[in-house]
């Protein structure tokens, strides 16, 4: 059978690649580094021929990767200072070579290299502190940042808010997928529930109409910047964020309870089904099950939605620090950005503390071996349900905040694709590792918002092709999922424990994989 031959040949190629890699790893370090350098040199030359500024960026990145390997500390420090000075001078004088004139690459290099000098014991605090500080200050210096080669300029503040919302969702999904090892393919459903909770209780949706044209229901509680006579529910967004989280967490429990006792892949398919049902309910909810009730306004979505705000009272009391209404401030985007940052911070903190808690350790135990965990007295159902509910909570809050930020919610925002998109973030970054997930989420969200379009136009300009790259976004994500799972299942920044699981496998070496 010709097919069997092809299959066996493929297996043989796979084995030989593995052998080659092992042989390469067994070489002396000097030889290995020499080979790496040669390969990188060729790559840099090829890249530079295509695009000069890309070549410069490649050199900078490679140097930053190589320099910390220098054993002699004085030499290392000298090289690093030289690198930063070089980048500074390059930015000032070679404006014709490097396309973008406003350069801050030297600052980025200085901060990055500086961090490698922090003793390992302090790194756990120093890195988050620096990253956090940079994130808080982001709106102030974003306009001065350099253009990332291939991807385009750094995201503006508005895009930043969207990215933060995605980061929050990715961290929430990471609790389910990364910690507890349950595959949730319907995460977008929780996102949608959060968004619609806010849309219902902070808009005109349920105003109704009496015969005289006046609103039937007018319920106000802590809403800011709304005419008190306006119909419909208008609850404070802060309360609604919590409410949305609780509602979605409850929904997570309701979905989870009957299905979590099934094996993992059944959970995947049930969550997928759930994630398909909810957007359809949202899309057809203007005539709910043919009863004529308008729940969701159908494909037109619910808009406008109230903006968050602290009210004039708190505004005056804090001396104008807290904005009364997010929409009336001069830099509304910045306020939204910082609030999102705060929410992400809370999410990170909760996720991090949960991981080290009794519950978190139970999640990891279940992920590694369900039977063994049950034998050790971990209550499977309760632990899994908690993972599910916690993940759902953050998804709900993220959806709620996003709805308030966009002041609208449409059923089209909640396709199955989004679930896979967020899953892709978690897997690319590294399942189970918060930093990895944040990196994966920022990168993919940026790619989705702006990067892919820029890369597409770069490709079309430089390689003389005509491909609509953003059209193939999800194919690209599919390739990312496939490649990461096949070659680096632990993701870009792996958690050591997860990496070990993937490389050792969960069972013994299978008999049938032996090559003859």
């Amino acid at each position, binding site marked *: *059978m010709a*097919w*069997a031959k*092809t*299959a*066996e040949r*493929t*297996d043989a190629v*796979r084995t030989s690649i593995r052998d080659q890699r092992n042989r390469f790893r067994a070489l002396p370090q000097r030889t290995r580094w020499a080979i790496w350098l040669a390969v990188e040199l060729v790559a840099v030359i090829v890249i530079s021929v295509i695009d000069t500024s890309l070549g410069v960026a490649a050199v900078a990145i490679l140097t930053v990767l190589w320099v910390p390997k220098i054993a002699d500390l004085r030499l290392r420090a000298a090289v690093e200072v030289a690198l930063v000075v070089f980048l500074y001078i390059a930015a000032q004088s070679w404006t014709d070579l490097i396309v973008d004139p406003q350069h801050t690459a030297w600052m980025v290099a200085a901060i990055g290299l500086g961090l490698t000098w922090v003793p390992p014991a302090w790194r756990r605090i120093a890195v988050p502190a620096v990253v956090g500080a940079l994130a808080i200050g982001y709106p102030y210096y974003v306009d001065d940042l350099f253009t990332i080669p291939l991807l385009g300029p750094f995201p503006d503040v508005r895009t930043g808010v969207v990215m933060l919302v995605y980061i929050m969702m990715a961290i929430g999904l990471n609790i389910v997928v990364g910690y507890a*090892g349950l*595959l949730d*393919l319907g995460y977008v459903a929780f996102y949608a529930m959060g968004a619609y909770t806010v849309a219902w209780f902070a808009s005109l949706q349920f105003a109704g109409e009496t015969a005289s044209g006046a609103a039937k229901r007018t319920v106000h509680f802590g809403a800011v910047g709304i005419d008190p006579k306006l119909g419909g529910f208008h609850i404070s967004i802060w309360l609604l964020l919590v409410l949305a989280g609780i509602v979605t967490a409850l929904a997570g429990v309701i*979905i989870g309870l*009957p*299905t979590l*006792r*099934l*094996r*993992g*892949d*059944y959970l*995947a*398919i*049930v969550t997928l*089904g759930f994630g*398909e*049902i909810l957007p*359809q*309910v949202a*899309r*057809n909810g203007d005539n709910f*099950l*043919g009863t004529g009730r308008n729940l969701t306004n159908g494909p037109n979505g619910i808009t406008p939605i109230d903006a968050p705000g602290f009210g004039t009272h708190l505004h005056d009391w804090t001396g104008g620090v807290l904005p009364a209404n997010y929409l009336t401030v001069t830099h509304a985007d910045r306020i939204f950005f910082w609030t999102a940052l705060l929410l992400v911070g809370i999410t990170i903190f909760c996720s991090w503390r949960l991981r080290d808690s009794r519950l978190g350790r139970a999640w990891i135990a279940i992920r590694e071996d369900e039977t063994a965990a049950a034998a050790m007295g971990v209550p499977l159902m309760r632990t899994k349900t908690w993972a599910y509910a916690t993940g759902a909570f953050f998804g709900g809050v993220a959806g709620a905040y996003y709805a308030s930020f966009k002041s609208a919610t449409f059923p089209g925002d909640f396709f199955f694709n989004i679930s*896979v998109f967020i*899953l892709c973030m978690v*897997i690319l970054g590294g399942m189970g590792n918060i930093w990895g997930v944040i990196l994966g989420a920022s990168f993919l969200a940026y790619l989705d918002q702006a990067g892919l379009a820029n890369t597409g136009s770069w490709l079309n300009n430089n390689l003389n092709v005509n491909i609509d790259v953003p*059209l*193939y976004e*999800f*194919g*690209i*994500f*599919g*390739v*990312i*999922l*496939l490649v990461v*799972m*096949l070659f680096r*299942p632990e993701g870009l920044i792996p958690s050591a424990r997860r990496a070990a*699981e*993937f490389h050792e*496998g*969960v*069972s013994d*070496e*299978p*008999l*049938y*994989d032996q090559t003859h």
Partner: protein
Amino acid sequence: MTTEASAQVPLVGKFRGMGVVPMFGLLLVALVLAWIVINFVKELEASTNVLFIGITQGAIYALVALGYTLVYGILELINFAHGDVFMLGGMISATFATSVFGLESGASGADWLLVVLTLLITMLLCGTINASIELIAYRPLRGAPRLAPLITAIGMSFILQDIALAWKGPNFISVPDILPKGRIFHIGGVVYQWNKLIVVLITVPVLIGLVYLVQNTRQGKAMRATAQDMDAAAMMGINVNRTISFTFLIAGSLAGAAGLLYALYVTNVRYDQGFQLGLIAFTAAVLGGIGNLPGAVLGALLIGLIQAFNEGFKWHAPGSDWTQSIVFSILILILVFRPEGLLGERTPEGA
């Protein structure tokens, strides 16, 4: 419940032993049955036509569901890419039928040979595609955590969709209306047309052949052994890798056949059709009891009927906007009430 002993127990006693959950499930089934019966009583002719549509749809779902069930039976993997192989089957057959063989609407006698030829080519190509997917995306991950092949399956599904998107573009491609529309019988308002019957006529021999293959041949024996215990099968001298490749080949060719039938019956295909239909077919496989071949067909027929009833009935039918929600609700309800499916056997793992 259906054992002989319980048949002698008076009706009330029979229900007393049940939990609340199965009782609720039975009530639900009874309500649905009542709804169907009332619809039939109110408008017999229209409802019978709807029934015929449902059977045809069910037959197409059955072919796809069989592929899910075969693969799940052997690898315990939900092959998310299967629906997209089905979609590619539609695209391939559309291309061959129009561009290569130049078929047009209303085919005559000699053209039927070409249709059969298209069917064979599509089945072969789709089988090869499916087996290649296994080789690329699933084989290296055997022995990895169960999550890993599921994730690559989703990745593969998106990749196949975008391959079709790059190949045929984002719009519906129309397929020539080859299937004859002549009436087989015509009683009152009830019409049964050839195009509906042909779809069923192709599905039935395929199912019989498949059951024969799995139950009576050496290859089928190897498949069953591999499904039970891979290591033991390998020790008995079965080439496990080849058996799994063969299973994917069969599953893919079934999807290809379904793709052709769907394309000819609905007369248009689009790159994103496969995923939705694949999920519905998977629901059918779960409904019938996953890993069980006749179960997949039964489940597919039921799902096809439910979909047709929902879209075609006049009295209190939610309508086509809600089809998906209803099908996935069924999926969730089955997993809650009877995870082993209608014809499946209860296993210690619960599903």
